[in-house]
């Protein structure tokens, strides 16, 4: 029996450059334009009390069947990349070598949804293969600009911590530990928090331990159970048992449960 290797190219963990942009102009002195961020439609943020920014990994904590989410606006982000076609497919396909590069425009739409009495939720679907961190940095800057009057709560993950960490001034939950060296945070969570810190916008954050590349992390059962306890009051749902059951179901459907799919973690 012949087993076909499905992918010759493996992205090393220390590889930082987004593989979407393959320009070789190392000695260019040109200034690069920033991604453009705009609101899909105007929204009066003063009608709301709180904005929860959550990564895809933790989105199951706000299950759609229990938490009625209604789209009220959205962030639209546009940016350009240049793709070298001959490198685009790497060794996956024996495609023809195509000389030259191709300019591509990318658009990302992130809906802002309202739920409960006074809360907004912004879910961020991170994908390090397609979206450069500059997009999240600029989005963080715009959030700090537009939403500084709201209570901001960031729910993120990190593979450099061992337990759930509570950040903010004051911290989201004083009973939880905060970061201690050498722990640190990266990915979209750090992008947003950095802009909030630099622009002196008050925030609170919960960071959960996870494993895997940014946007494709997996969570342990114990972490998920702890998060369910912490986030139940935020969800503004009534029956805790129903909430926990819905969270577990969506966590597994979301593909972020450790051991559910990979076969490596059992």
């Amino acid at each position, binding site marked *: 029996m012949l087993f076909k290797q499905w992918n010759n190219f493996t992205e090393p963990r220390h590889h*930082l*450059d*987004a593989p979407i*942009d393959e*320009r070789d102009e*190392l*000695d*260019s*002195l*040109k*200034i*690069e334009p*920033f991604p453009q961020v705009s609101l899909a439609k105007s929204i009066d943020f003063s009608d709301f009390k709180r904005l929860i920014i959550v990564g895809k990994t933790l989105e199951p904590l706000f299950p759609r069947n229990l938490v009625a989410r209604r789209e009220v606006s959205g962030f639209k982000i546009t940016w350009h990349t240049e793709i070298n076609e001959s490198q685009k497919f790497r060794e996956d396909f024996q495609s023809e070598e195509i000389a030259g590069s191709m300019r591509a425009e990318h658009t990302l739409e992130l809906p802002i949804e309202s739920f409960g009495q006074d809360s907004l939720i912004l879910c961020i679907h991170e994908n390090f293969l397609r979206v*450069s*961190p*500059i997009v*999240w*940095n*600029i989005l963080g*800057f715009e959030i700090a600009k537009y939403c500084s009057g709201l209570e901001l709560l960031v729910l993120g993950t990190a593979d*450099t911590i061992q337990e759930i960490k509570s*950040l903010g*001034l004051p911290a989201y939950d004083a009973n939880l530990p*905060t*970061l*201690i*060296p*050498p*722990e*640190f*945070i*990266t*990915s*979209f*969570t*750090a*992008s947003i*928090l*950095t*802009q909030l*810190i*630099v622009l002196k916008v008050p925030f609170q954050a919960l960071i959960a331990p996870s494993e895997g590349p940014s946007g494709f992390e997996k969570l342990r059962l114990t972490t998920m159970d702890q998060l369910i306890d912490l986030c139940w009051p935020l969800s503004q749902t009534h029956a805790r048992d129903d909430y926990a059951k819905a969270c577990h179901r969506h966590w597994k459907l979301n593909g972020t449960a450790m051991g559910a799919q990979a076969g490596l973690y059992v």
Partner: protein
Amino acid sequence: MTTLLLPLVSTGNVPQLSTDLLLHSLSPRFKFVQELTSLHLYPFVGPLDHVPGQKAALYDSVTDKRYTTALELFYDQQRDLYVVQQRSPVLQHYENNFCKEVVAPLVKQLRVQHVIVLDSTEGVEEALARRNLPDPTSYRYSVGTCDLSEFENVAQEFQDRLHIDEKSNTSLNTTLFRFSETSFQNGITTEQFVFKLCYHLTHAASLHAVLTKITYVNVLVQEGDNSEDAAAACQNLHRLAPEIPSVSELHAPASWSGVYGVRDAPTAFDEGLYI
């Protein structure tokens, strides 16, 4: 003379580690000033760093600071020396933006007269390597100076001094910096970050009356655990650039405990696996 030390993210992170040692070993004299714009850098948020067993002395002057970001500014009043600590690399393709939109305005705002750039490398282009050193193994540092006060028309002088070698695949420049006799290199390439930085610093019209000198310090290192390279570089900085204070006793911050992992490097090899 107001001086700014700028460590580049480069081989083995030696400039960052050396800056860590400088700041934390001399924490009574260095004080945190402000966070700088981190839009152009890979995102990073961490706790306040400190020497193990001590409080975060660098941040004594600010009461509400709880987290560090990717780019921060510190100041030594005694020597009128500003030090930037950069904890993550500049994003791909945004190096020029970083130089023009972050470093140049900072130099202008602080009225910096002398910028010291700290870099590290595994080796230099063959055409740039000095061959007549008495003992090449003992020379691990290159120091080049670019005296802008000699320039009458900075932008024109910059163009004239480029003298890029078109025969080589990589564009080389041997005239922008005047390297010392003991340096292991005699020029830079136009692909290097320091070239972009010099270009943007010399082309910012608002800096012509302020900035007089750029010093480039390069350390020869190898990939791996570079903590000892950083310690050596930190102790040699004062000799290479007298504006930097000398450090007699080195103190590494707590964040170093996670730099190279928690386990010892594997030494045994069994059935194709390191154990």
